[in-house]
């Protein structure tokens, strides 16, 4: 039965794929790691876009034109990304999606700016779905760049807002990776906490080396002896997993508020230890009931891509917004679509999303969730999944951050 279902699905997919290939009018490129150690995180997003564009094509396409999505493997190397970007542009791609790694995003923003300046009439647009360095929509903002993920300071806003609603959190410990991103997270946390919740004390502010620590127990020991009620961390990858794992092993049952707790495999690696310990801030979680349609999408995704879970909600939002903008502009050309995107609002499954015109930063609701074993949709193919916490919904307006962007727009 399962095989049959799969076969039908595969058949229908290939029909759709063939149809889209035959009538491809607009080419979009996805540049992210699709192989190597970071391959899974790129692939999880790529599959999301795949599904999103299939649905878009089935519903009439981008302003009536069919979209062809191609993946380009950049191996998370900024240099390789430039080759792949050139490849994508040469193949006729107008819209570039990328998200893994701020270093890559910075290289692409820079390259797209230069390309568009040097090749008028052949512009491309960079749609960033995950690189969260605030600078991209502040001092380094660009007309050719749109970000669909909340940037680091906005996520921190959500976290600090939520801490403000919790009377039992009086002491907070900050820990992060010792590089520009970790430092920025710590700085944002300190200033926001000082401003919003003066009665919350920061009992520790620690940076540890990036990707080198095997045993976090000494850090956990420090956290424990500081008497912290919660920990805030911008850690990603193994640094995040090992940190929370060490906490669980040492019996430290306090919230670890993370940006990347929802990343692939983290819950599986932590197992039961993540319950009520691992928290994440994201733009949507599968276990918020957002209606039948959304559930169908989540289930279809899981069915198609059993290795991954519906996580990149913003990929679907980005495609929705692109479609809405193309319709509004009555065109699929880059400059009109970019202008139409500015200030556009679409109604997403987990609330409205607005693309702020001044800096091209999407404004959306953020949700704080934690791991639970009593959920509808598990992750990583185990029983555990993400559940919204009390007061975990942070409205877009309160997550919003001012911008220093001085956008230069083409005529």
């Amino acid at each position, binding site marked *: 039965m399962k095989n049959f279902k*799969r*076969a039908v*699905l*595969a058949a229908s997919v290939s029909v759709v794929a063939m149809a889209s290939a035959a009538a491809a009018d607009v080419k979009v490129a996805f540049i992210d790691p*699709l*192989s*190597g150690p970071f*391959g899974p995180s790129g692939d999880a997003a790529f*599959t999301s876009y795949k599904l999103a564009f299939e649905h878009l094509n089935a519903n009439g396409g981008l302003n009536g034109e069919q979209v062809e999505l191609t993946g*380009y*493997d950049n*191996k*998370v*190397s*900024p*240099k*390789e990304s*430039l*080759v*792949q970007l*050139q*490849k994508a*542009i*040469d*193949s006729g791609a107008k819209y570039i999606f990328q998200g893994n*790694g*701020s*270093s890559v995003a*910075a*290289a692409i923003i*820079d*390259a797209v700016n*230069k390309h568009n300046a*040097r090749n008028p009439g052949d512009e491309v647009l960079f749609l960033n779905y995950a690189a969260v*360095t605030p*600078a991209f929509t502040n001092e380094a903002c660009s007309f050719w760049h749109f970000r669909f993920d909340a940037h680091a300071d906005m996520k921190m806003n959500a976290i600090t807002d939520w801490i403000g609603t919790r009377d039992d959190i009086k002491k907070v410990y900050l820990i992060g990776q*010792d*590089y*520009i*991103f970790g430092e920025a997270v710590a700085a944002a946390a300190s200033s926001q906490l000082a401003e919003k919740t003066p009665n919350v004390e920061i009992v520790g502010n620690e940076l540890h*080396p*990036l990707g*080198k620590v095997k045993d976090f127990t000494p850090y956990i020991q420090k956290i424990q002896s500081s008497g912290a009620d919660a920990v805030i961390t911008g850690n990603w990858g193994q640094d995040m997993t090992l940190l929370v794992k060490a906490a669980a092993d040492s019996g430290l049952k306090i919230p670890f508020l993370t940006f990347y707790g929802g990343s692939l495999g983290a819950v599986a690696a932590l197992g039961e230890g993540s319950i009520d310990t691992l928290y994440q801030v994201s733009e949507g979680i599968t276990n918020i009931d957002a209606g039948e349609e959304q559930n169908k999408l989540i289930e279809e995704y899981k069915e*198609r*891509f*059993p*290795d991954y879970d519906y996580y990149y909600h913003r990929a679907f939002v980005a495609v929705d917004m692109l479609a809405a903008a193309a319709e509004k502009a009555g065109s699929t050309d880059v400059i009109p679509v970019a202008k139409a995107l500015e200030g556009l609002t679409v109604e997403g499954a987990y609330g409205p999303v607005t693309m702020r015109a001044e800096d091209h930063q999407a404004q959306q609701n953020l949700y704080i969730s934690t791991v639970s074993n009593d959920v509808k949709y598990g992750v990583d193919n185990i029983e555990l999944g993400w559940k919204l916490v009390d007061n975990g919904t942070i409205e877009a307006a309160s997550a919003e951050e001012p911008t220093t962007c001085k956008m230069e727009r083409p005529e």
Partner: protein
Amino acid sequence: MTDMTMQSTALGPTSAEKFRQRVLPFVLFGLVLAIIPFFGPSRTTMTLLNHIGINIVFALAYNMLLGRAGLLSFGHAVYLGLAGYFCVHILNWIDAADGGFWGNLPVFSLPIWGFAMGALAGAVIGWPSCRRAGTAFAMISLGVAELMAAAAFMFDSLFGGEMGISGDRMSGPEFLGMSLGPLDEVYWFVAFWTFVGVVAMFMFTRTPLGKLSEATRDNPERVQFIGYDPTRVRYLVFIFSAAFAGMAGGMAAVQDEIFTPESMSLIPSGAILIAAYVGGIRYFSGPIMGAILMTWMSSNLSDYTVGWLLYLGLMFITVVMFVPDGIAGLVFGFWNGIRSPNRSHLMAKWAQQAVGVALMIVSIIVIVEVAFRWSEGYGEVFEPWGMELPHDGVITWLLAIVPLALGVALLRRVARKSEEV
């Protein structure tokens, strides 16, 4: 072999031979570089060609160490990276300058600056590390690479942290009427410096120091007894190798206009090691071939298969195990073979070997592709030329086993036969 050389009683090669062996290849190389743009390559091809040029210089610089001096380094990207960073800084100084020295410096000259910076870095880091050879040298280079990569993340003002630093190659005065904006102008820039680098590095092999580096590789003990300090030889060669790597860094700074800490990590260092080795470290032209092949593969193979890293690893291991002289060894072996008296015999042997290898490749591709698709679980099926190969299909298994077995049998037979001869 012996017969042939016995006849040539003349001491050195004749001037005709010299021309054929030492001048003609470079004239041809220059011509190829000059002709390529007239085929109207796409911008993608142009970018790829530029990267190939950079990697040719880098691989040759690396081979000055590995092939010529016998020093295995796991951290040579450090020198390319440091020089590249320096050059991007220069780009920004040129951009910011209002006249003065920097304001009048053409961007075209950046590889010279990269060369200087590479030499400086090599001189500083090489001082302690060149006192050891062999595995100790390799391990020091590994340690230094780890330390430098970590430092790059620590000092944001120099390295720009995770995002690196970027510059604009269109700043500064134009040189030869080139703004270096369009890719074809960058191509000329890269081609020019690639040519300069290749010729300079070839000339280096002909200098007393170049010869002594080979002597030191072969027999460091003996070098001491003809008046040379092997440590000093290694150190000087190391500085040059780092300098040429730096030159590649200067070229990369103009092509990519950005440098990030990854460029100093173990990954590009390992990649260039693989490129040089697969190309053939015993031949001057080996690393050039390796750089061309590896650059192309890493940028394009991933378009066809997610398993490209696996193929890369398989190819590398095959080269290490069965073709220690690399592609250049194969090419020159073939070239010598078709000119040797028993060419028909050799051709028959090669033809059999080629068939054997091809058969094995068929099976390996089937196994890898089917396995990857099966393990991803998207329900995708490997369909070469419309032939459906599911993981549980009989044909799949046949294709995975039969050609492999046939290929192995054929290769073994050829090997046995040539052993008997």
